[in-house]
């Protein structure tokens, strides 16, 4: 059975890679844009998975890294005249440094308290950027235009976002094979036991948070450059945090490809809903989130890994496990 799971995974990965490379050459701007957006959410969900899934710290403020990445690029490029190729990595490192500074005190909190603290950090940053002069406050900030044809721009951002996603997944994969990955999972399962076995929990947790911040920051930089204009409400939106967590959970927390699959399926579902129900699509989205959480709390990866037979019984068993 495990063998079948591994084959299914390889097959899905292969299809995703081929489709991912082929899409921009066979489709119009709208589709490319849609998939660029999906890739961005895949990056965010995968980055969240590092701190939320593997380390077990439910960050409810990961959007703050997207926002910081976006604003570092915007301010550097617009106010400092820095070229994109420098602003782009600077955004990642800016977000990572912020993650270290915030993580040192905040990662001492556990469970709900950590969740609320990160949420508070994100909201406080939104309010701060809203008021600062260098970020042009709540009127938003423009970024320089790109010197490329429209189609070329779409393809450029598509492949850049895909590059960031690949980097995120590869780094996560390597991390899982190293001491860091084992340490993080040990922390998730039992932090005190991990500590007593010589895992430097603080260092590991902060590293994990910084990695999560780094990739989200890179995504933020690309998002800002493609949009050409950003506002605090859009890049520090709590809704984005919710979306990335829902994607990670829907795909499968603590699995490498789960968040990617989650992002893909949630984005496709919301796009279809938006097409059919112009006003009420978010209503249906809420309903889907509720149903998915109740019936498949372990995510798609749990189903396709083939360890358990999928059917009505599988769905009901999930409820039996967790109800009172």
């Amino acid at each position, binding site marked *: 059975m495990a063998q079948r799971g591994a084959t299914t995974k390889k097959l899905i990965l292969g299809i995703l890679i081929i489709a991912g490379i082929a899409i921009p050459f066979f489709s119009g701007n709208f589709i490319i844009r849609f998939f660029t957006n999906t890739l961005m959410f895949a990056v965010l969900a995968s980055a969240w998975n590092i701190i939320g899934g593997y380390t077990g710290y439910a960050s409810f403020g990961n959007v703050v890294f997207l926002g910081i990445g976006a604003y570092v690029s915007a301010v550097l490029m617009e106010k400092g005249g820095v070229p994109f190729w420098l602003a782009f990595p600077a955004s990642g490192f800016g977000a990572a440094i912020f993650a270290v500074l915030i993580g040192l005190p905040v990662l001492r909190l556990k469970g709900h308290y950590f969740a609320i603290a990160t949420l508070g950090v994100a909201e406080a940053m939104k*309010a701060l950027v809203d008021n600062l002069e260098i970020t042009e406050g709540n009127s938003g900030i423009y970024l320089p235009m790109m010197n490329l044809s429209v189609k070329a721009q779409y393809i450029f951002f598509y492949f850049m976002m895909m590059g960031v996603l690949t980097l995120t997944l590869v780094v996560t994969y390597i991390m899982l094979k190293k001491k860091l990955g084992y340490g993080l999972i040990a922390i998730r399962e039992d932090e005190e036991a991990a500590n007593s076995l010589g895992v430097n929990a603080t260092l590991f947790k902060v590293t994990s948070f910084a990695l999560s911040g780094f990739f989200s920051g890179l995504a933020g930089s690309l998002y800002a450059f493609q949009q050409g204009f950003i506002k605090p409400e859009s890049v520090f939106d709590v809704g984005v945090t*919710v979306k990335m*967590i829902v994607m990670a959970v829907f795909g499968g927390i603590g699995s490498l490809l789960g968040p990617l699959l989650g992002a893909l399926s949630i984005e496709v579902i919301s796009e279809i809903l938006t097409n059919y129900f112009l006003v009420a699509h978010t209503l249906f989205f*809420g309903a889907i989130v509720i149903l998915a959480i*109740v019936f498949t709390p372990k995510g798609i990866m749990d189903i396709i890994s083939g360890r358990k037979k999928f059917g009505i019984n599988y769905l009901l068993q999930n409820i039996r496990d967790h109800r*009172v």
Partner: protein
Amino acid sequence: MLLQIIVNGILKGGLYALMALGMSLIWGVMDIINIAHGAFIMLGAYCTYWLFNLWGVDPFISLFLSIIFMFIIGYGIQRYLINLVIRATIFITLILAFGIEIFINNLALVMWTADVRKVQVPYGASNFSIGCVTIPYVRLGAFFIALVIALVFYFVLNKTRTGRSIRATAQDLDAARLVGVDVAKTYALTFGMGVGAAGAAGTLWAVLFPINPMMGGILTLKSFVVVIIGGLGTMFGPIIGGLTLGVAEALGSNWFGTTYENFISFTILVLVLIFLPKGILGKSE
């Protein structure tokens, strides 16, 4: 001038306390962070708005209807939805609550549009003065109602059989079940009480401020701040937290400008979490 600002802060703090009361109860008993709390406040506000606009029911009377209505909704949601996943990891209940919030907010948006609405009571502007401090009657009324509801909560939790089973369930689920507490029902009652308090907060909010279907998000966040500042596990935590936040916001907006109001609340939140993780009144474990 300073005194007036502090009084304003205290009066608003009473409302914050009421908002947080329900969230604190649900959090303390079931370990659920009810992210949909603001959405329930919004429903309570609309309940009052429609009763007032369609039949002219005074908000201070529709308060009771709003509490009962929201209690029933809360009871049902816990009994038939949240109870299904309550023993899963914390992500699951958090995201379920998010799903409920998205659903309720957008249902309200579809039914009632995004228009900003107001409950215009004839006595809305009347006030009285003590020395140099002006106090609007409506705000004072809202403040006292918040305190009365907190007292009712305290009484129910500490002096009744239901309250005993709620406290028992909060302390130890399995032990409570062993001595014959119907846990599923107790959870539903607790959630119903919390959401009922949110409904009351919504009614009072509708009297004081304009309402719209998306007003809940920021109120949920403020309720967090209040719960955290006050500390979990005591009925007086939300009151202390609410008053602290109300006064801090009023003073902060005065010194730094109103646009910094949210920055101040969330900075307080993070600082309290880091330095006083159990809150001002929180019991240590």
